[in-house]
Each structure stands twice: as C-alpha cells, then as structure tokens.
C-alpha cells in the first residue's frame, strides 16, 4: 500500500503530464499582416514592459507611435473569425490576449477600460444595441458575454 505522500506525488505528476505545456491558441483567428512589429519571442518577454512604458509616453506626452500603440496591437491581432465576429477578452478561447493570459493565470485589467476589439467591431456592436433598444451602458450589469448571448438571441428571432 503506497503512502499518502507517494499517492500525492503520483497525482501531481499525472496532472503535469496531462496539462498543456503551451496555451491553446488554435481557435484564435490569425492576425493581420505578415509579422508583428517585434519578434515573437521578444514580445513574449517584453510586451508588458513595452505597454507600461508606452502608456506613460502616450498619456503624459501625447506620443502615439503606431508601433507600440495598444490600439494598433488590437487592430492587428484581434481579427474576425469565420462568422465575422470579433472575440472579446472574456472569450478565453478566441481572444488573442486571453488565451495566453488564461493559461499563464496572469490577470490583467487593461480591458476594464481599453477596448478589446478594433473600432469597427465596437461601432457595429453599438449600432446593434441601439437598434435593439438596449443602451450599451445600461440596464443589467451583466458581463460582456451575456450581451453577446443576448444579441445572438435577439438576432435569431
């Protein structure tokens, strides 16, 4: 009969074997363009420093170079899927940022304020709410996912 410690160790090892080694980005629609503004590995290591530095440059000094602008990151990396929909950050399988962050369990609050989709997608959503009589900032305090569901239900009618 194995001891408790040995059983726990076995369970942990099994968990490590079956858990993913990398984030699953299979459902993320491909980004625009040939390549990112920086090397992928460089971005993996430095993207948050870049964002943190760039935000001060932009807000305090009005420097808005497109290379490291968050808006541009979103414009390139968040593209439409086959149905023509743009994922929101709450969609952990299809949003470019969400897949890795969910895997790495690093929570970010960028998208509490910043748009997680390109402007065209946002404007489209807004027009849809207005047509359906929903004030985008009103009523239920439901999460964005609920809104997607709601608009899907409304458009299915």
């Amino acid at each position: 009969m194995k001891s408790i410690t040995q059983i726990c160790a076995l369970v942990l090892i099994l968990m490590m074997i079956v858990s993913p080694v990398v984030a699953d980005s299979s459902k993320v629609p491909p980004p625009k363009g040939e390549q990112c503004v920086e090397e992928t590995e460089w971005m993996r290591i430095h993207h948050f420093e870049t964002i943190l530095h760039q935000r001060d440059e932009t807000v305090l000094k009005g420097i808005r170079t497109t290379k490291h602008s968050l808006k541009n990151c979103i414009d390139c990396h968040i593209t439409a899927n086959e149905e023509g929909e743009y994922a929101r950050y709450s969609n952990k399988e299809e949003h470019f940022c969400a897949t890795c962050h969910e895997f790495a369990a690093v929570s970010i609050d960028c998208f509490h304020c910043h748009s997680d989709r390109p402007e065209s997608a946002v404007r489209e959503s807004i027009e849809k709410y207005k047509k359906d009589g929903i004030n985008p900032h009103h009523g239920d305090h439901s999460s964005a996912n609920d809104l997607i569901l709601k608009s899907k239900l409304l458009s299915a009618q």
Partner: protein
Amino acid sequence: MKKLVSKAYKLLRTKDTTPDQSKRSFMGGVAGAAGLAVAPGVMLYETAQAKPLDEAVTDQVRWGMLIDVNSCSDDCNACVDACNDEHGLWPDKTSMTDSQWIRKLTVRDPQTEHSQSFPVMCQHCENPPCVDVCPTGASFKRADGIVLVNMHTCIGCRYCMMACPYKARSFVHKDLYDQLPNTPRGKGCVESCNMCVHKLDAGDDTTACAQACQKDGHQAIVFGDLNDPQSEISQRLKSHGGTQIRADLGLNTGVRYQGI
C-alpha cells in the same frame, strides 16, 4: 525647451516606417500651399501646429475654446451629441450617476427674466484645482494646456470632483463595455472632457463639439491655439474679449465665453 525634449526623445525613439511619414510631408505641403493661397498674416488652417505622432507635446501651443453665447441656441444639442458619439458616452439624462463631459447650461436671471443657454465642459484651467488636489498626480495638465486624468494612476478617490468649481468631472459608477478604442474609460476612475486629445495628437485641429457646432449647430464654438496671435480664437478674443466663468478664482481658464 522643444530641442531638449526632442533630443531626449530621439534616444528612445524606434524607427517608424508607418504611413505617418508620408502623412506628415503631405500635411506640411498643404499647410505651405494654404499659407500662400490666403492673404499674408491670416492663417486659417492650423496644420502648422500639427505635431508629428512621435514627438512629445510642448507648451508652444495652448489649446483653448471660445463660446459665443449669443449664437448658441437653447434647443440645440449638437455639441453634446457629438461629444457623446465621439467618446462613446451614452448618458441617460435622468440618471445621477452617468457621465456627462459636456452639458448645456441654462442660466436665468430671476430679476430680469433674461435666460441664456450654453455648453459647459472642463475649462482646462491654467491653475487647475483638480490637479492641485489629486493625491497621486493622476489629474494633470499636459504641456499643451489640456487637463486630463491619467487613468492608469487614478485611484478613484473623487477629490478632484470635490475641487472642481465647474462640475466638469464624472465618476464611472459601473462596469462599461464596448468602450471606443480612442477613449478608454472604465469603472472606478474619474473622467472629464479631454479636448479630444486623440484627434489633436493625430493632427486634427479641432474637437468633436467645435466641429459639430460649425457643421450642424450655430457656429458658436471656436477651437484653437491661444498662444498663436494669428489664430481665429486669439483674434476673436482680442477684438471682442471673452470672460471666464468664476474669474474670481484666478484659474485662467482655457475656455472663454462671449456674451455671458
């Protein structure tokens, strides 16, 4: 000062091969042409001021607004609607917690029964009380005179809202979604009119409200550079004057009114 700033920035600047370069030279060319085409001494087009995207703003420019109250009409809301549309604000007019960056104020003298209405927004003071009181320095004045909130540092204490004499600031009381990419805003932070910084930094020379007033309203709002004596706003201020709301506070506002 400008030299120092651009020198410092050159150390940090990355090579930018986006279409900005061609846009800059195009704009520069147009500005030159416009300057030649119009009578000397009168520059109607503000593109001479348009700063390149990768340079810091400087205090060479001081953005300001002039509102001609006599032209402003009681039942026109073009400026308010334009601002809401530009920044993704959808205030429910009956709600006490929704954000309003600009609103039409109706002022009535009970003695003479004379009544006026005009838009009021953040006055972008030179000595802003909101900047003085912010504990973290999130409320700040940019070099070009625009007073705004750095949402990355704002802790949502609302002291700036207590301090503002113009009730310019709003607090975001609930979760937002579908914020427009040009105007990030979120729950727990304080916000106010930012003179459409995203437009100005991109080379535009006006704000959404001024633009709407010129196009759909009564041409009551003029936006421009207060530091440039040739700008329309400076010339109008020189010829017809302009008052500040609460001038007694000595804040030297960037927004002036004619006809109050």
